[in-house]
């Protein structure tokens, strides 16, 4: 159906955790295609493996079997250090608790991922300025995280996630720790990143309001991915 090749293609992904000599399956034969510029929301009960799936897509974890292709890269075969380099260039992270570095200013937090690129100091500065103006926090660039509200911190984190112009943005419950107003702002911003800048976003959420902002909704339950909670899992083609 799609004219273009999907930007992310997951095939037969299996992941289990080992606990006390016992293997606990978390993801069973997951298949998923994500188009470029798509805003996908992943819902499901707690402990169903949403974060595990997101971490695998983001190259933070190693799968047991199956493949994950992002862009034209098969990331399941990459080594630890190759993955680190790949993440630096291709993935932007948005966390539930913002995860800003407390001893660095907003500006420096956003600059951090650029330290892993070859950009000059001047180029870095202009990238950071652009990213901060995108989240409307240019006037707060010298503030430390503790001087910012939760919503502002999350917007700085979004600026940090987009500053390297990554292929993919991953967000694990980005509104989970925010009040309704801040959550709306953050969701508005993510929607804008997708529609105006064409970013591909994968978001794990519990929040139905967040889910409503997305283009595609997937449910994960007992390690199986479905389009809707009542529909059984379709076979991979």
């Amino acid at each position, binding site marked *: 159906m799609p004219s273009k090749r999907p930007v992310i293609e997951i095939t037969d992904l299996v992941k289990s955790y080992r606990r006390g000599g016992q293997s606990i399956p978390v993801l069973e034969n997951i298949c998923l295609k994500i188009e470029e510029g798509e805003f996908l929301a992943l819902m499901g009960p707690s402990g169903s493996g949403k974060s595990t799936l997101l971490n695998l897509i983001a190259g933070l974890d190693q799968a047991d079997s199956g493949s994950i292709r992002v862009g034209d890269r098969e990331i399941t075969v990459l080594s630890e250090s190759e993955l680190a*380099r790949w993440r630096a260039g291709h993935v932007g*992270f948005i966390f539930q*608790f913002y*995860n800003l*570095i407390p*001893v660095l200013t907003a500006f420096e937090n956003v600059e*951090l*991922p650029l*330290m892993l690129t070859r950009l000059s100091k001047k180029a870095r500065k202009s990238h950071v300025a652009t990213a901060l103006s995108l989240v409307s926090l240019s006037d707060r660039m010298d503030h430390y995280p503790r001087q910012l509200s939760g919503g502002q911190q999350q917007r700085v984190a979004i600026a940090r996630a987009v500053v390297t112009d990554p292929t993919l943005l991953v967000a694990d419950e980005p509104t989970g720790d925010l009040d309704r107003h801040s959550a709306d702002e953050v969701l508005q911003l993510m929607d804008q990143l997708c529609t105006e800048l064409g970013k591909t976003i994968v978001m794990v959420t519990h929040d139905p309001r967040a889910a409503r902002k997305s283009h595609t909704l997937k449910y994960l339950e007992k390690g199986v991915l479905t389009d809707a909670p009542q529909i059984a899992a379709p076979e991979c083609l």
Partner: protein
Amino acid sequence: MNLLFFYSLRNLLTRRLTTALTALGMALVVFVFAAIIMLAEGLQKTLIDTGSYDNVVVIRKSSGSEVQSGIDRVQASIVETQPEIAMGQDGRPMIAKEMVVLITLEKQDAATRSNVVIRGVSPASLALRPQIRILAGRLPASGASEIMVGKSIATGFKGAGLEESLVFGMRSWRVVGIFDAGSTGYSSEIWGDVDQLMPAFRRPVYSSILFNLRNTDDFETVQPRIQNDPRLTVEAKRETVYYKEQSEAMATFLRILGLSLTIVFSIGAVVGAMITMYAAVATRTAEIGTLRALGFTQAAILTAFLLESLFLGAIGGCAGLFFASFLQFITVSTTNFQTFSELAFSFRLTPGIVIKSLSFSLIMGFAGGVLPAFRASRLNIITALREA
């Protein structure tokens, strides 16, 4: 990676109290370390400055120092005939046959007595030691019961002031002069005519012979000739070497003491740094996970934490050296181990000591930080991120 540098530094500055306390522990160790080698350095410098390179000291073979040495008049006159001996401005050879004895004198602060070197000198003795200046009075006249005293003696002992009298060797000696010999050992000596002092102490032999070389290189010819002469049982050394050897035992003792003390203390400081750094890793686990997620490598995390610990060491090292530098204003007076006489010297801070102390503090920082830094770098990213 300058942002990483700031990251490490600011983390230290953020937890000010912990940093200050940990650094203080290291500072104390560096202080002790620096103080003791400064002491050894000061002692050695004082003793080495006492000698000059172109002077040759002759003492009895394997006697170790002037005090234990004895050279009879026959041997002394053989040494006197060596052609390498320089001529003084007065046309006489620059050679001094001297006698050294130790006596105890009552100190100015009453109760205690201390050993003092009495040196019987020849007319050339003063010219052989250019660092000596007469501060007050005059030289003792030859043939008279007169003495001159070093600056430290004049102020430190009873009856040693100008125009006063000291009683020793069963005679009374009038102090006619006070001399200054800088920071050398002579400042703690009493000088009189050797021909008066030898009979007074009933000593038939000289203690040592000191002469000046015509040419510096002549030492290479005169030393073997003196030492191989079958009529002589003496050894000849450059004066600087003689005094360096004199200070070696004490300086080595101090250095070993300093090193053993600081190694023991440093274990405590290193453990302190290690606890601090492990705590830092524990409280910043989520932060480490975040940095790793952003693409920072294990090596970068290792570097950041190691850098933090090295900074900690550097802060401690600088603080320790800062406090130790004030010791330079203190003059200590101690017993010279070779002669058991009083010797005044100062703590001496040299660039070498600064480098040694700072390296030592960095080593402590490294030792304390290496295990925590490894732990930080090997954290599992996902487990670390869950700590948020």
